[in-house]
């Protein structure tokens, strides 16, 4: 009598095909699962699926909308990927995004007059600095006082949103805004240029792609990147090798916060032109899903962000035509994270059916 047993054998290094195949299959599995749920709720799949696809990629407008939506997700995805590489659990991307946006409108809202080639970089730098500063607190609390950064970064998201609300109802409120809680519009010299005529797609995408390339080089090709990976892999071993773990974490945190801050700055400078408290429909949290889907690989963050953006844009257009809530997009995003997590098992282990004598 023999019994079948499932055995998990560690896989030393997964093949390139597997590295590519697992995330793609995870994303597809998430979409399929979500469609099953959609069917259960009685939605007409025959109409819903074409609407979802055409809404995300069916026209030049749809494609530019998807890329517009992908821009902040690339930034927040990179922010999460950089931090998670060093096992710094920065879940505060949402708050850092708002910090970046607030700094961007503060600098670009007419306080400084300068030509675009000076003002645009200044606005972006201000956004990055604000995001980095907001994360510096939790990182210092972690390295100095051993305070868990997950909870502090999460709680700061709520604090930051309230702070933005306070500024938009107080000192930074648009005097011409008829009492609405929004900032004064940014001056034209501070705006990121549009990429396609008549469309909303803006140069923030170029910056996001450049950031992805830079982060890739940083992680793969520099001593700092090696240190970050070493701290993330095994902090004790890294310390033994003479790497300053707190120092590495602080630099990682500054990078991560700056990237999330850029997401906010690029949204206000490229898309909205002013700041409101509904700037982000959870880009900070979705960035975590993007990073996981990309297996924390900076270059892979780009397609992962475009996928998540397509889901959001497609779901929006679907919900406008059919009576399906656009919370559907959030459902797909959550399922994508679960499927990626389950899929990562296949990257780490080889699953074998074993025949063992009972």
């Amino acid at each position, binding site marked *: 009598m023999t019994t079948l047993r499932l055995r998990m054998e560690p896989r030393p290094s997964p093949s390139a095909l597997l590295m590519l195949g697992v995330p793609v299959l995870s994303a597809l599995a998430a979409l399929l699962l979500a469609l099953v749920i959609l069917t259960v709720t009685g939605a007409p799949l025959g109409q819903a699926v074409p609407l979802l696809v055409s809404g995300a990629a069916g026209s030049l407008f749809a494609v530019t909308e998807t890329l517009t939506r992908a821009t902040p997700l690339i930034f927040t995805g990179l922010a999460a990927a950089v931090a998670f590489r060093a096992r710094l659990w920065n879940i505060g991307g949402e708050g850092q995004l708002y910090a970046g946006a607030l700094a961007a409108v503060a600098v670009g809202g007419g306080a400084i007059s300068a030509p675009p080639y000076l003002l645009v970089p200044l606005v972006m730098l201000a956004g990055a600095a604000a995001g980095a500063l907001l994360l510096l607190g939790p990182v210092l609390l972690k390295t100095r006082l051993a*305070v868990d950064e997950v909870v502090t970064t999460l709680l700061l998201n709520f604090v930051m949103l309230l702070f933005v609300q306070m500024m938009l109802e107080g000192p930074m409120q648009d005097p011409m805004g008829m009492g609405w809680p929004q900032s004064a519009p940014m001056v034209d010299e501070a705006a990121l240029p549009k990429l396609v005529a008549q469309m909303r797609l803006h140069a923030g995408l170029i910056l996001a792609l450049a950031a992805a390339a830079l982060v890739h080089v940083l992680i793969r090709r520099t001593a700092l990147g090696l240190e970050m990976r070493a701290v993330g892999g095994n902090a004790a071993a890294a310390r033994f090798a003479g790497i300053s773990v707190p120092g590495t974490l602080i630099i990682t945190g500054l990078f991560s916060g700056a990237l999330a801050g850029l997401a906010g700055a690029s949204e206000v400078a490229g898309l909205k032109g002013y700041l409101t408290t509904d700037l982000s429909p959870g880009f900070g949290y979705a960035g975590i899903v993007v990073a996981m889907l990309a297996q924390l690989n900076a270059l892979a963050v780009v397609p992962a962000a475009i996928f998540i953006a397509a889901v959001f844009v497609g779901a929006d257009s679907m919900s406008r035509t059919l009576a399906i*809530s656009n919370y559907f997009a*959030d459902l797909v995003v*959550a399922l994508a994270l679960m499927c990626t997590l*389950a899929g990562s098992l296949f990257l780490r282990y080889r699953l074998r059916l074993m025949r063992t004598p009972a």
Partner: protein
Amino acid sequence: MMEALEIIGQASFWAAAIRIAAPLIFGVLGALICERAGVLNLGIEGIFVAGAMTGWLTVSMGGDLWLGVAVAALVGAALGLLHGVFTVILGLSQHVTGLSITLLATSTAYFGYRVAFPSVTTPPVIEPFAPLNPAWLSAIPILGPALGQQTALVWLAFLCVAVTAFVLSRTPLGLALRAVGDNPAAVEAQGLSVTGLRMGALAAGSALMALGGAFLTLSAFNSFFFGMINGRGWVCIALTVFASWQPGKALLGALLFGAFDAYQVRLQTLAGSVVPTQIFLMLPYLLSILALVLAARRADYPRALMKPYIKGER
């Protein structure tokens, strides 16, 4: 200034403090049970949402209030088991699993709400739990009326503290549960199942978290709305460290937090328009961070927290 002090003598203040504390009591108890067994459950925020939504939905569809409580607890336990499949059985990252449970539970609850009520602007309300007002309480000054205004769910929260404290410190099950969070190999050597204990802790702890959510829709308010949890789950994770994973201190921490929160709401009306309301609204979150900072130095984390246990691996 005197007015600011007089608040503390008001029964209504203490009633509000207890009402704010109740969901946190459930949440902190749930989190500490999971963490004592070695699993960090960051699904808590989403489990709160799921409990609030399913409990309320059950009652609004004609179910009994207690049926709503039971459904919420079952949904919470199911989400806890899902967490366990990923973290305990498959040994995947507890951070990422927890966050994905939060995203999944929240989005499913919101999507389900929109499926059930496609285009209502004001959600249907239910008849929530009524205050118990036991006669023997009214003799006690301040605290009597404050406790009298509370519903059966608040008393259930107090009962859960006592039961959790008793089980954890006075029973073989509690000993095994604490051991599995400190030294799972030793538990395995005793012939007990690490997987079974951790899955059980996750199911029980997550059920309690869901009760915290259900308290909001079935007792504190009478309806479900988006964003009603608003970080309460994360506050519980911070308070768990503050409470050093002890049920008694969890009760104390939650009540302190409730008192502070109730106090700032009253100060807000006293302060008028001098201080922006957002400052007051930030205080609970900042207070949680402060609690975490104060506790971090002496925090004695369960030693096997966040370490997956795979049989035969060291």
